[in-house]
């Protein structure tokens, strides 16, 4: 193997995830120590550490292209794995790696660029006859143009940032009179988040399911798919729970969608791991949405049902190897669910709740996989994402997976910050979730209460509050104040104090 040493340009659970596989492949790893988390858990998995904790600039080092390249050169690594987020989908960074003779573990800069720009991606999809929601041909420059196109394709429409993702710069417009305002908001948001104000318009698909296909391609032009994931449980376009496979697909539809996913990947000569996202409407029509040119947070559920280590495949493909199996070898085995346990306050609209993890207990079981970057005593810092752990639970079918998930959730115990656990506990008890008939509008439309509390919880809370109040008052009244003591002054002081007047 050419690749003998990898720099992990990332942190947290994904850095650990990559280093675990690297270790199995006998590849050395380098991690970066930052000022924000100098004692982070991921550092203990690395063979070497580059200490950047003296650098206290506001911008995370993981976003600083020159710095990352400099660290890679300094440490003499053969390759860089960007993980997800940060520089993972930065074509310029991938290009810079190649310039410096470092292998970028991911697709070609060209593929990143083409799929990263949604207007270009749309054009490629159209050229390759991939089903697509009707919309504007390219970027839209002003609200008048937007209104014109929207009236042509019919409301509701969705405005999307051309170089965006993760829900930012995205607005659904239901009425013509909202267009001007929402267009401007989306455009401004896009500029702020992605440094690019361009947006485009698509027909908004009402209540779809979010289905995405895991793609694997090598540098020799082989592309296969590893089945789908369903990520319809979202809040404001942020995924909360993912599962593989999806109960909305049968093998015929799976084959059809998978074929489309492979086709678009081939259109950009895609290699490494990637994800093609589709929306599936209630009539089982599907529409290409976008392609993510990186390893996804939710790659774990695909690994759970296919038994393939996606990080290993990424590294092997980056090393120039061809994929050792073909489409026919891929069998989906059982069901897997991933819950993103984040440090967020569900009752405060999922607001991040950073802080120290005072206690962390995660269950272990053959059916359970935990990917985490924290342990008891670690801190969830405000400067990074709020993920605490990914809980991946398997079962032989969906019912069993949900049952196992429910049990696993009850065994997770996290103290110190508020978490999304109460949300998941509520979710797995929801009938519509169990039936699998939910869509991306599930949270807004079908879930009345975002958190679960057991029958006795409120009673217990009231009881504890009362106990605390009583104890506090008892403690207060038990403070034995000695007023006499204050009157006993040394003659020296007493004399002087009195003579003062």
């Amino acid at each position, binding site marked *: 193997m050419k690749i003998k040493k990898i720099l992990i340009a990332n942190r947290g659970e994904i850095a650990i995830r990559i280093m675990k596989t690297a270790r199995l492949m006998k590849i050395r790893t380098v991690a970066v120590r930052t000022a924000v988390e100098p004692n982070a858990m991921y550092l203990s998995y690395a063979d070497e550490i580059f200490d950047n904790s003296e650098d206290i600039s506001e911008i995370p080092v993981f976003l600083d292209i020159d710095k990352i390249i400099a660290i890679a050169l300094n440490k003499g690594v053969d390759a860089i794995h960007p993980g997800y987020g940060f520089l993972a989908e930065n074509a310029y960074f991938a290009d810079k790696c190649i310039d410096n003779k470092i292998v970028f573990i991911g697709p070609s800069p060209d593929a990143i660029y083409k799929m990263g720009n949604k207007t270009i991606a749309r054009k490629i999809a159209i050229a390759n006859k991939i089903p697509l929601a009707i919309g504007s041909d390219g970027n839209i420059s002003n609200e008048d143009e937007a209104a014109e196109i929207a009236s042509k394709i019919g409301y509701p429409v969705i405005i999307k940032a051309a170089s965006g993702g993760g829900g930012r710069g995205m607005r659904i417009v239901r009425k013509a009179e909202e267009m001007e305002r929402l267009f401007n908001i989306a455009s401004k948001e896009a500029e702020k988040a992605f440094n690019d104000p361009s947006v485009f318009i698509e027909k908004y698909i009402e209540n779809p399911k979010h289905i995405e296909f895991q793609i694997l391609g090598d540098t020799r032009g082989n592309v296969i798919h590893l089945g789908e994931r369903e990520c319809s449980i979202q809040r404001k376009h942020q995924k909360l729970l993912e599962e593989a496979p999806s109960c909305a697909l049968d093998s015929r539809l799976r084959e059809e969608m998978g074929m489309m996913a492979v086709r678009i990947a081939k259109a950009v000569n895609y290699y490494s791991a990637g994800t093609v996202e589709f929306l599936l409407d209630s009539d089982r029509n599907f529409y290409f949405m976008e392609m993510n040119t990186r390893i996804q947070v939710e790659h774990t559920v695909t690994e759970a049902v296919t038994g393939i280590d996606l990080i290993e495949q990424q590294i092997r493909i980056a090393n120039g190897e061809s994929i050792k199996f073909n489409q026919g070898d891929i069998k989906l085995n059982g069901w897997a669910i991933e819950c993103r346990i984040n440090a967020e306050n569900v009752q405060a609209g999922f607001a991040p709740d950073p802080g120290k993890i005072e206690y962390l207990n995660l269950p272990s079981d053959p059916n359970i996989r935990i990917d985490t970057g924290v342990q008891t005593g670690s801190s969830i810092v405000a400067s990074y994402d709020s993920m605490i752990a990914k809980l991946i639970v398997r079962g032989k079918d969906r019912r069993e997976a949900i049952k196992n998930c429910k049990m696993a959730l009850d065994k997770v115990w996290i103290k110190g910050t508020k978490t999304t656990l109460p949300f998941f506990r509520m979710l797995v008890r929801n009938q519509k979730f169990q039936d699998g008939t939910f869509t991306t509008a599930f949270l807004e439309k079908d879930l009345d209460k975002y958190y679960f509390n057991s029958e006795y919880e409120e009673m217990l809370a009231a009881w504890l509050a009362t106990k605390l109040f009583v104890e506090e008052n008892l403690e*207060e009244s038990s403070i*034995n*104040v000695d*007023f006499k003591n204050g009157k006993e002054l040394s003659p020296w*002081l007493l004399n002087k*104090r*009195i003579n003062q007047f």
Partner: protein
Amino acid sequence: MDISGKSYKAFIARQEALKKQYSQKQAEKQHSKGKLTALERIRLLFDTDTFEEIDAFVTPANQPVEFGKVERSFGDGVIVGHGKVNGRLVFAYAQDFTIMGGSLGVVHAKKIAKIQEMALKMGSPIIGMMDSGGARIQEGVASLSGYATIFQNIIHSSGIIPQISVIMGPAAGGAVYSPALTDFVFMTSHTSYMFVTGPNVVKEVLNEDVTFDQLGGAEIHARKSGVANMIYDDEENTILALKKFLSYLPSNNVENPPTVADDNSTIDVNEKLRDVVPDDPNKAYDVKDIINLIVDKNSFFETSELFAANLVTGFARLKGKTIGVVANQPKVLAGVLDIDSSTKGARFIRFCDAFNIPILTLEDVPGFLPGVDQEHSGIIRHGAKMLFAYSEATVPKITIILRKAYGGAFIVMNSKNLGGDFSFAWPTAEIAVMGPDGAVAILYRKELAESKNPAELKKELVKKYRDKIANPFIADESGYIDEVIDPAVTRKKIISAFNALSNKWVKVPARKHGNMPL
């Protein structure tokens, strides 16, 4: 005792009439507003069965009746008396809103004045619980003169006995100056208001719409005006907190503050203290984390928490003995001194000095807040208050420099040459005329202008400045501070330092009073 005799009949009848006066109906009226009655407040404050009421049966003065009748009721709308709070003698008056809206008539005022004078004679704290519609219109100028007497008494007692006001209803017009003159003001959220002119007048004169809460609610006075020192959600909690608060204060200015038995539950050497101040000098931290590790467990009682939060003030205990704590709060505005924090600090320091409460200062101050607004509003004048208060105070004064101690703000924050008794510094301290960025910009202006890469050069120079100049060791070696200490031993150090200072006496020149910049 035989109370069936004729002379007792009138006595008993009167007692029953008074009882009837506090009828359930009137209590319900208060309760429906989320308020307690005057009697209930008194009962909450004082130890069981210790309150002795005075002048319960006085009746309002006779006044001309053209402007409405004055209710003939016992007590004239105020309960006054004395009792024990946590076993110590305390005087109190509580206005009764159910009787003529708690309005202040002549007799009402006389009762308050009487109890004020008694408290001063005995050298005991006095609590005023306000819930009043203001001066009684029917009694005219007589009621106004009543206010004047009350004000005069407060001023005479100021600095001699602790005087605390608790606002539990409206306080409007001249009435607001009674709490304003006292040492501390407690308020209850949503049921108490203070303003000189009410919303109706504001509407008439300025045509601005403002609600009672927006104009003078507890929240506003605690956050913005600084009039209220402590606010609580309901009256029960307000009074419980007041009782706790009183346990820190001596009865008068001759005595020392009371002590509590030290249960030795706080560790004297705590290594956690080494981790609170971040390595990065630009990072914030919560100074209260440090306070809570230094003082006796759970003993820190913060005053004016919401107002000028860039300076933390409050009482605490050290080995059971009361101290006052003044600390810059890096978490808020980086802990700068501005107008509000200067006046807040100065007033707190003067209270401590008046009542023999030693002062502990925790310093991490980047300087005074710059800006046109601050300068034009008189940061010079207001900053001088802090300086004056620190220097004037003769109680034991100890300073610990945690991190930044720059320029004028270093001098102000109880520096040694301003009369601080002991000055310690942590190894993280940076003592200098100004912060590294400013200093480098001035000292190396030319070099920076000529440099090809000024940002890089500046970074280098800042690092050099921090290493060479902005550290505690120069000050230590030249005696401007007493010792650079390991943060872990801070508590141990200050306990022994305050012990050494327990008999401190400073002879100040005789004078009528200093002329503090106000």
